[in-house]
């Protein structure tokens, strides 16, 4: 599904991302973790062709993201509020995104009807523009807009950060369910270790732009990660 080759990004002489090789197969659910400045968002942006890598390439379904646009048909992403058209009402935004995928309004309405619980009555028919919603509710709009496109590949950058506990639980179930039933490939970054270990089968741990650990989630993973983050220095020397 995703293949990364020698991907490197440099800002002001500092290497912020340096990933020699990584492959993510179809149907995998991957968690991306790492402290602030580890390069998670930069990696996402390179995967989505939003910034130009210094060298190397990212392939989605075998297509170099910087060269073609076919990958946009099958992938959806929500990194931050910059992905939302904030002067539209949520309904208008959903219709717009649906329209891009040739979905009728009735189809979009049907889809949204299934997300009543996820929205918790705070999104639809509230008479607000997206810019007037809270950060958490904006995140719900962004995630729902992604799922509306029924993507094969979904990327979310810290989706749990601003949403309430109920929505966190619902989102986790949603992601697990879509991964199991529809084989949707997901990449989710988070600072909450228990969330990632719960949702993801595979964890990529980033530090200073490098992926220093690539582990299959098991019962002991959470403990292992907690140990790493409470004493990051030890792990660093190990990695070298």
């Amino acid at each position, binding site marked *: 599904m995703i293949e990364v080759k020698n991907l490197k990004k440099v800002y002001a002489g500092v290497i912020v991302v340096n990933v020699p090789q990584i492959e993510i197969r179809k149907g995998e659910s991957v968690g991306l973790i790492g402290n602030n400045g580890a390069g998670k968002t930069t990696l996402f942006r390179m995967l989505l062709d939003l910034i130009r890598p210094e060298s190397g390439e990212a392939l989605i379904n075998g297509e170099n993201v910087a060269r073609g646009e076919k990958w946009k048909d099958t992938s959806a992403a929500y990194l931050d509020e910059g992905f939302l058209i904030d002067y539209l009402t949520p309904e208008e935004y959903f219709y717009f995104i649906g329209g891009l995928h040739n979905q009728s309004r009735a189809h979009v309405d049907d889809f949204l009807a299934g997300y009543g619980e996820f929205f918790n009555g705070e999104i639809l028919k509230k008479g607000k*523009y997206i810019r007037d919603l809270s950060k958490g509710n904006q995140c719900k709009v962004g995630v729902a807009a992604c799922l509306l496109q029924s993507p094969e590949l979904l990327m979310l950058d810290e989706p749990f950060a601003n949403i309430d506990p109920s929505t966190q639980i619902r989102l986790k179930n949603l992601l697990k369910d879509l991964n199991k039933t529809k084989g949707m490939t997901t990449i989710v970054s988070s600072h909450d270790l228990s969330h990632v270990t719960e949702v993801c089968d595979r964890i990529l741990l980033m530090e200073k732009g490098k992926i220093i650990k690539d582990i299959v989630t098991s019962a002991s993973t959470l403990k292992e990660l907690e140990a790493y983050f409470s004493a990051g220095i030890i792990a660093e020397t190990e990695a070298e």
Partner: protein
Amino acid sequence: MTITFIQHELKSFWRSKGTGKTIAVRIVMGVLILIMLLYVFALGFFLDKILEEVAPTENLVHIFSGIILYYYLFDLLMRFQLQELPTLKVQPYLHLPIKKNTIIRYLSFVSLQSFFNLWPFILFLPFIFKVVKPDSGGLVATAFILSIIGFMVLNNYLSLYIKRRSNLNGWISVGFAAFLVSLLAADYGWHIISFKNLSFLFFGHLQTMPWLFLLPVLLATAMYYINFLYLKQNLYLEDLGSQKKEAYKTSTEIPVLNYFGKVGDLVGNEIKLILRNKRSRSALVICVIMMFYGLMFYIPSINPKMANFQAGKVFCGMFMTGIFIISYGQHMYGWQGSHFDGILVSKVNFRDFLRAKFLLFTTISTVAFLLTIPYVHFGWHAVFINFVMYLWNIGVNTLVVLFFANRNYKRIDLSKGAAFNWEGVGATQLLIGFPLMITPFIIYAPLSFFHHADMALIIIGITGVLFVFTRSYWIKKLEADFQEKRYTIAEGFRNK
């Protein structure tokens, strides 16, 4: 504490995005502002000569005394429209252990830094020193100056007070504007009251009773305290901010656009962008005001020299049908800067994106052209000029604007007002003016010099049509150009 505040204020000025521009842009802007100030200063400096010209028989100080109150009335109207509330500046201090009174004093002080508080000095001080002082002595001149400052401060806090009140109740602002307008109507239209007499009553008597200056000073002080007390009771972010109480926002759609499919959807979104945001809305308002620009050229009594000035009419035809392309287009795609990442990642085909821009420009230009048809009153030739320039606008100028849009890396904060807002203005915006305004005259000037002006217009029109028909070719070129620059554009928009 106040000193710390002032230091912060200075830092916020020097470190703001607006001041941190490239040297060249700053110099050009500095020069523009300086020229504007010089004009006002010249007006103030020669006010005595001007008044002499207008009314040679009357006493200078008398006329001067008669006009001051008019100035302040217009000042109040303008302030009410344009002066920004300095509010969010206090947000970082509200939760700190700082006395409310100190914060409010700071807020009141900050509100004094406004262009509006500079004009009275530049306009009136030269006259006072040149005429009033030699005429009536230093004491009276001082009284004049203090009165002028008094009225200025009064206006400053009055307009802020009304603006703050109207944040909580929108009707107050409507009522106040209606009140000011009816005051002016009562003077000019119905002759019930006369501000000239009122103004003279005060400033005329100031010459014999200088202590009258206490009146405006007392009024100003009173207004300061009213404002102060109001702020003290309402020092909450929701009351301070310039956001009005929000009404229910409905989803709307423009059915005609469905005909254009995905491109139509994009245009629909952009029309919503324009209508739902303060700054882009003002581009539309300018468009409407521009409709009347032609009157300056076509009505002989307004400007006799212009009546036979063909080039001026061509210029104005371009503005009337294409001002939207110029004023809105020059900031493209910065209007969408806040969600540009979303557009890039989404399934929006960039060719559709460009087609939508062309469709938007063509639609609005067409509407503008249709609105200028009443100029037929000044002869069919006027409509002919406007039509030719309309073709030029949708053919060539749209292309020029989009060519520069690929080179514009500055985002626009849609929520801010347009007046005195330099955000998003950079070298691109300064450069774009030249090709837009000069190119039609490269065709027009030589031919009209040899008395073939109509031939020139026909060539301009045909050129426009040619570019419209070759649009798909240009769209391909623009797309290829964009693909090369997209990272830089997206990166620029990410910098808030």
